[in-house]
């Protein structure tokens, strides 16, 4: 089979230094947020093991303030700051064009200001409403406005990528978009569409209500708008990891990607199916017809399909790498994979965790079965395997080459980098095993268990595993932070990668026939919008106008 490079400019392309610096700081914000969030994460895990360490947190007013900080820092800021740096960088590199300078800086500035506002609101205990911000619990307006700015910064990053893409298309009429650029852009296009409902919720309801411009709010409508965005947001965290798995990891492991078009189809399926699935987070909610919940259940099962496809493609690409490195036999290639390369190892562990994350997610989506586990610790057990492992470990693995690439300094300690990934992985498996089993026994999520006035001995074993696993996760991330900080501050000037690792595909993108339509982003956006209208239209048409019934409550 003849390999066709996906890169048009094999000589490499480097961004102007000021753009590179801005993207580097954007990504630093993400890793700072990750590290800031794990301290209360540890307190939460230990609370489930009936150990209270909150007295060691000076200035913290309560468990739920810390829980809000953990969710916001680790689920929102870490993920989007990483994507805001990573995706524009991939787009620029794949298309061999610089970004728009002022947009790079504007996105960073917006992200910083948004963060400052959110940090103010959370640290002063004026926003202990958790990252889901369910009304009618009411936070200070700076919390909502800060998060809006974080979202606006993602929009600015996307606009930048689209400008680059348009410029490239003008210069290459009729040519196929290079794969890495294509999947990077489509990841954030999906997020743009997905973010519109939450923008309506925050700008149209929560923000004016927190400012006193609106007396009352509709709790079910704002919650529904949150989950209209809220399932796709998970895919917005995941797709940048998929970008790395598809377009970078095979090259790092010495393999190749099987099919170009196939990869594009997978990303289009994620674009189309990620958003119209939000009701599966609201199966136990009143006020939403059961029939519409059923429609979303089927669509949620649909979005599993591209992940099945990914499992095959990515593992096949790794197998090609393992065999190219001398692996023989049915499974002999596994041993030949680069187990000494922390970047590859962290991401292979991420893939392994995602198998279990995916399976437990399918159970969550399973309609009436969801009633057994809804809002129990099963749910955080599940999503620490997805965002907390598949995404986090991938972003750790990417950091092991990306930070050297961006700083021009070699990775500080390969051994410590490897250890951090393994410790975190072992931790997250023990943690999730505990959360999942205790969840099946009804242990509630988002609950300060140490201080709860009810208990159940059936939770003790799972709670203990949660505490042990969570402690290991804490040390894994702490070590990761040391590795990254030491790399940036003291890494050797030699030994940093000159270019990003771009994968070749075995089958080149077709330049004739139907496959060219895969590059018509406008068409697929239209399909997505139509599907969203089908999934949410009947509910909204019969539900609206908003039922403004609830005043704000500050119970923290």
């Amino acid at each position, binding site marked *: 089979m003849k390999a066709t490079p996906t890169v048009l400019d094999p000589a490499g392309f480097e961004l102007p230094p000021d753009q590179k610096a801005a993207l580097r700081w954007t990504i630093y914000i993400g890793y700072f947020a990750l590290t800031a969030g794990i301290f209360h994460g540890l307190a939460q895990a230990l609370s489930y093991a009936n150990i209270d360490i909150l007295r060691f947190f000076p200035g913290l007013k309560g468990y739920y303030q810390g829980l809000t900080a953990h969710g916001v820092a680790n689920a929102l800021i870490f993920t989007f700051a990483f994507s805001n740096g990573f995706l524009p960088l991939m787009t620029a590199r794949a298309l061999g064009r610089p970004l728009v300078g002022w947009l790079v800086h504007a996105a960073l500035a917006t992200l910083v200001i948004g963060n400052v506002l959110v940090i103010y609101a959370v640290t002063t205990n004026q926003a202990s409403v958790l990252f889901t911000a369910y009304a*009618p619990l009411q936070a200070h307006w700076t919390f909502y406005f800060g998060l809006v700015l974080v979202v606006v910064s993602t929009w600015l990053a996307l606009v930048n990528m689209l400008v680059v893409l348009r410029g490239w298309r003008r210069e290459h009429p009729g040519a196929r978009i290079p794969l890495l650029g294509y999947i990077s852009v489509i990841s954030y296009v999906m997020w743009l569409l997905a973010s519109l409902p939450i923008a309506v919720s925050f700008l149209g309801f929560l923000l004016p209500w927190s400012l006193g411009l609106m007396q009352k709010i509709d709790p079910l409508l704002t*919650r529904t708008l949150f989950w209209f965005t809220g399932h796709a947001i998970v895919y917005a965290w995941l797709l940048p990891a998929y970008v790395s798995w598809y377009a970078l990891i095979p090259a790092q492991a010495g393999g190749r990607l099987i099919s170009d078009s196939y990869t594009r189809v997978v990303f289009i399926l994620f674009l189309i199916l990620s958003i119209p699935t939000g009701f599966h987070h609201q199966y136990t909610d*009143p006020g939403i017809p059961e029939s519409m919940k059923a429609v979303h259940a089927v669509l949620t099962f649909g979005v599993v399909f591209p992940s099945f496809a990914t499992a095959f493609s990515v593992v096949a690409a790794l197998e090609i790498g393992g065999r190219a490195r001398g692996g023989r036999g049915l499974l002999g290639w596994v041993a030949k994979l680069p187990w000494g390369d922390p970047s590859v190892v962290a991401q292979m562990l991420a893939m392994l965790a995602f198998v279990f994350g995916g399976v437990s997610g399918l159970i969550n989506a399973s309609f*009436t079965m969801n009633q057994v586990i809804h809002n129990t610790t099963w749910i955080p057990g599940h999503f620490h395997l997805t965002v907390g492992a598949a995404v986090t470990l991938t972003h750790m693995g990417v950091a092991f080459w990306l930070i050297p690439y961006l700083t021009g300094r070699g990775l500080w300690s390969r051994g410590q980098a490897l250890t951090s990934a393994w410790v975190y992985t072992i931790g997250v498996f023990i943690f999730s095993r505990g959360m999942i089993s205790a969840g099946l026994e009804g242990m509630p999520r988002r609950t300060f268990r140490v201080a709860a006035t009810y208990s159940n001995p059936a939770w003790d074993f799972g709670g203990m595993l949660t505490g042990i696993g969570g402690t290991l996760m804490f040390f894994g991330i702490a070590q990761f932070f040391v590795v990254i900080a030491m790399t940036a501050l003291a890494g050797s000037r030699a030994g940093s990668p000159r270019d990003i690792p771009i994968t070749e595909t075995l089958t080149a993108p077709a330049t004739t026939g139907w496959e060219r339509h895969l590059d018509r982003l406008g068409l697929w956006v239209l399909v997505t919008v139509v599907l969203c209208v089908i999934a949410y239209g009947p509910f909204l048409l019969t539900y609206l106008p908003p039922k403004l019934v609830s005043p704000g409550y500050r119970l923290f």
Partner: protein
Amino acid sequence: MKVHTYERVFLWLGGAVLVACLAALVYGSVGLGLHLPTKAGTIDPQAVAVTPPFDRPGVRQVGPNAYEAVMIGRIWSFTPAQIEVPAGADITFVLTSADVIHGFNLEGTRVNMMLIPGQITRNRYRFKEPGEYTIICHEYCGVGHHTMYGKVVVK
């Protein structure tokens, strides 16, 4: 677009697993009659105490072997805090919240519902075994969230 044979097989198998799971769900909800909460009316959360049936919370018989359990969630307790129902009877829970969003999870059962201000939550359940079941509020509802629980005594 070339799809490898192994890949084709893998994807068909994956698709078949999904279809089988969906078939099981259809059997569960249509065949076994397990339902999720659906539209069941709206209410002014600030007037819960004077709006029927929530003006008289508690258990009442509504038919032969059929009961309605009317309960209100408010920070940080359920009203009534404890109810008694017979085993083997059809119990319809009729619930709402008087302030913020609360959860209603009956340990060891599939009774798991959200109480959202402005909405009435209904779902039906039949207890097979007598015993004491703890109701846990499993949605964050303020600083006292972890002290919010109730009890169902099945006789």
